[in-house]
């Protein structure tokens, strides 16, 4: 058998559930706040009490349309809600209101950046639906408790075509979907709180084949690395079955992150017939074309466009542009600093370097750090040599910790660079006097000691000495 004759490739499609960032639920006025005491944000509608009826939250529609347009989907003027019927204790009405035959949007596409280029992944559909509640299995001994705070929370489900081929591609797709959703401000995409959930459909087939193998559904992946690992494990599992001459069964699998393995949830024989039919309590959702076009016009600049513009407009290297556009918050922050400091390259250096490092140390977001104007002021102090680069980094940390401005810190702590000839000469002379040996070695040709003297002078001046002036003085005084 020649190498690769039996080679298999994976075929992967992702279903991403996105919780829309609304204050109210999809069909009632209850709050969507996460973490409130169980069953406090509930009403007759989301409890499914007899006689209660759903009404639409228009803001959820606005957000869903925005998301659909960002992924280049065709948003339909008329979409229809349907009932997906099944019994589950956390599903109060016995059905979920979702969209089925006529979804909000279809046929989109999305350019995913990969290490070796770009790949277009087609988006099959995006539809709106309500979330179910939560079954809590650890609250009541021997029983299950139900929290319906989440019931009725608005979701968009984004279904890709099976265009992904590797776990790494799936991860990149998901990360970039999340990035775009954050840019759009349609979701907070918090995977831990469940506002971004993903299921994967995975199958394998011989390389070169166009037919699709039997797929399995993979659920319960709640981190990017979980998605990648789970899909890799499932591809391995299916490949082994196929290589052994077996057949893959159509089942639903749960990813066990702790054990790093997939295990079956239910077999196809038990799978549901959801008995979809149009939701008679809601008229079709009609969005006038003019509104769709207006929403398109109001789309924020998306990451890839912004990345290209940063390269062009600010002459930033690709790497800088990529880091700075990784989140909308960071990109907005950078642009504000660049404008205030009137120096994009310095703004980029400071934001990407010292600022991100300091934020990481403190575990805070860029939005809650120093104001862009304050950082611009610091950059100006460094640029006009009032303080050195290194003192600047220290000042930044103090700004973050105290909330004081760079000027205040420099003044109050006497950190301004010293250029007074007398004072500089004093520090230089003291260093040279204390290191007569090194002076002698320097003069016999050990020129690299220049740096040592420089360092000593800076140390004794607590970083305040103007390095240029010090260098000139050293050169003069060390001259033979």
């Amino acid at each position, binding site marked *: 058998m020649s190498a690769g004759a039996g080679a298999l490739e994976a075929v992967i499609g992702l279903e991403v559930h996105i919780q829309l960032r609304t204050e109210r639920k999809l069909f009632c006025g209850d709050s969507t706040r996460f973490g409130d005491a169980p069953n406090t944000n509930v009403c*007759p509608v989301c*409890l*499914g*009490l*007899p*006689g*209660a*009826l*759903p*009404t*639409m939250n228009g803001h959820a529609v606005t957000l869903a349309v925005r998301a659909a347009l960002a992924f280049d989907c065709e948003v339909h003027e008329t979409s229809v809600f349907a*009932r997906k*019927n099944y*019994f*589950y*204790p956390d599903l*109060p*009405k*016995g*059905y979920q209101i979702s969209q089925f035959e006529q979804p909000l949007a279809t046929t989109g596409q999305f350019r995913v950046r990969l290490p070796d280029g770009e790949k277009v992944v087609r988006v099959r559909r995006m539809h709106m639906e309500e979330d179910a509640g939560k079954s809590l299995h650890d609250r009541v001994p021997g029983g*299950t408790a*139900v929290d319906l705070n989440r019931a009725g929370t608005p979701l968009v489900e984004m279904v890709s075509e099976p265009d992904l081929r590797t776990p790494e591609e799936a991860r990149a797709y998901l990360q970039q979907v999340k990035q775009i959703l954050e840019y759009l401000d349609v979701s907070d995409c918090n995977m831990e709180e469940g506002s971004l959930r993903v299921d994967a459909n995975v199958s394998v087939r011989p390389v070169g084949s166009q037919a699709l193998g039997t797929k399995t559904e993979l659920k319960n992946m709640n981190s990017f690395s979980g998605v990648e690992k789970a899909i890799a494990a499932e591809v391995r599992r299916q490949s082994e079955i196929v290589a052994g001459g077996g057949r893959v069964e159509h089942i639903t699998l749960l990813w066990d992150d702790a054990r790093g393995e997939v295990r079956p949830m239910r077999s196809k024989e038990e799978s549901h*017939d959801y*008995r*979809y*039919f149009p939701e*008679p*309590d*809601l*008229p079709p959702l009609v969005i006038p074309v003019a509104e769709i076009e207006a929403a398109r016009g109001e789309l924020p600049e998306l990451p890839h466009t912004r990345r290209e513009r940063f390269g062009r407009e600010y002459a930033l290297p690709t790497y800088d542009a990529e880091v700075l556009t990784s989140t909308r918050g960071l990109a907005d922050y950078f642009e504000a600093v660049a404008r205030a400091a009137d120096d994009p390259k310095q703004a980029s250096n400071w934001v990407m370097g010292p600022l991100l490092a300091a934020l990481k140390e403190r575990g805070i977001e860029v939005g809650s750090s120093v104001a862009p104007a304050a950082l611009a002021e610091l950059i100006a102090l460094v640029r006009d040599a009032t303080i050195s680069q290194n003192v600047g980094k220290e000042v930044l940390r103090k700004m973050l910790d105290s909330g004081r401005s760079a000027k205040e810190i420099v003044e109050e702590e006497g950190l301004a660079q010293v250029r007074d000839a007398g004072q500089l000469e004093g520090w230089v002379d003291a260093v040279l006097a204390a290191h007569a040996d090194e002076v002698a070695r320097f003069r016999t040709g050990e020129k690299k000691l220049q740096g040592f003297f420089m360092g000593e002078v800076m140390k004794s001046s607590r970083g305040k000495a103007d390095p240029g002036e010090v260098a000139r003085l050293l050169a003069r005084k060390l001259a033979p």
Partner: protein
Amino acid sequence: MSESPGVREIVGAVGTAGGDPLRFANAALDRARRAESEDTPLHAFLALADSAAMGGGAATGDDLDGGGRSGKGGPKGPPLLAGVPVAVKDNLCAFDFPTTCASRILEGYVSPYEATVVRRLRSAGGVIVGKTNMDEFAMGSSTENSGFGPTRNPRDRSRVPGGSSGGSAAAVAAGIVPCALGSDTGGSVRQPASLCGVVGIKPTYGRVSRYGLVAYASSLDQVGTIGRTVEDAALLLQAIAGHDPRDATSAPLPVPDFLGARGRGVRGLTVGLPREYFAKELDPAVQRLCREALGRLEEAGAVVREVSLPHTKFAVPAYYILAPAEASSNLARFDGVRYGSRAPGADSARAVYEETRTRGFGAEVVRRIMLGTFALSAGYYEAYYGRAQRVRSLVASDFGRVWAEGVDLLFTPTSPTPAFPLGERTDDPVSMYLSDIFTVTANLAGIPGLSLPVGAVDGLPVGGQFLAPMWEEPKMIGAALALESLLEEAR
């Protein structure tokens, strides 16, 4: 004890004379208790107010968010229903009473909120005296399917009052209250009104809020009113109609004066006689009385014209696919998890559902859930549900064509027979389903219908039905008022 006075009489007395505004309601309660304590109890009510509680739920109207509806009788007058005792079908959520839908599965359930129509009723000054018996979850045509025992027809207690709003129709026909709320999914207001000899109105779909009406088949359900006279039924409708933001299918239209066409008569009105509703199989007495009523209309200046609604014969089969399909989904929430009764000792989620539902639902409800589940299941959806939906639009287009031909209203029998004896059809679902043959078309098309008495055979009332284009209730009520007085004169 005498019968309840009419709505206007009560409102007038309460508004001018002062005194106890609840005296009419208390008198209604006395009559209701008496009717229940007789040798053959009427069993029109599942719950009665104790007089002390009656004022308790009275709304002030401040939280009402309706359209052009007015709860007031006018700038100076008392509210539209001041002091009027009203009976409310038990599938409408109301404070101070259980809401059981006549089902064991909801026995003792008290809703924590009120139906919009109940709030509006209260804010118009109406007093709810009790919740009326019905076919379980409004599924039936005789009120024999109640989980708590059947209601009897006050005209002949060996016979059914019709269904599913049989309790409401019986309470009005027995003179306990001048008017009552019902719900009409396939004729459940008009058919019992016909069998009990009172007036029933099913408004246009979307005219009245369904918020707080426990759903049977959402796309067909509409709250309707029953009165001893056309006027009483219309006044009650006036109080409850109007847009409700809590019901997405409620129409954002102003509410007309439903009695605005009073006194206009029927001169110049074109009344259609649909030949499919007057088939030769029709009970001859019903046929004769309806044709006589049409004769009166003609004498009074209406033009009567025979028309054809060719898809009528498919309406009942389509209805008995669509309504159970929706019902199978609407009734899924009765699962024993959150409210109502739960089977004791069930040891898994699945067992909770199965045992609760097996014990809680009656035979007819189970039959329709099974039918509906089958009609929606993956392999059969197109053959049943999809096809029934197409029939539905054909039925609606039949009506549309007739209106376009210049017909103002249609007149038909309401029920193919007068009230039948208790137990006669309980073992034969299909014959029971045919009781709705003249009424389901209005629900499928969303148009309004009104049934009023046109006479009696052997003491058993016979009803005739006006059908009107959507939103044309004033025209329909105007014609019914005219026919009512023509028939009165002829007696």
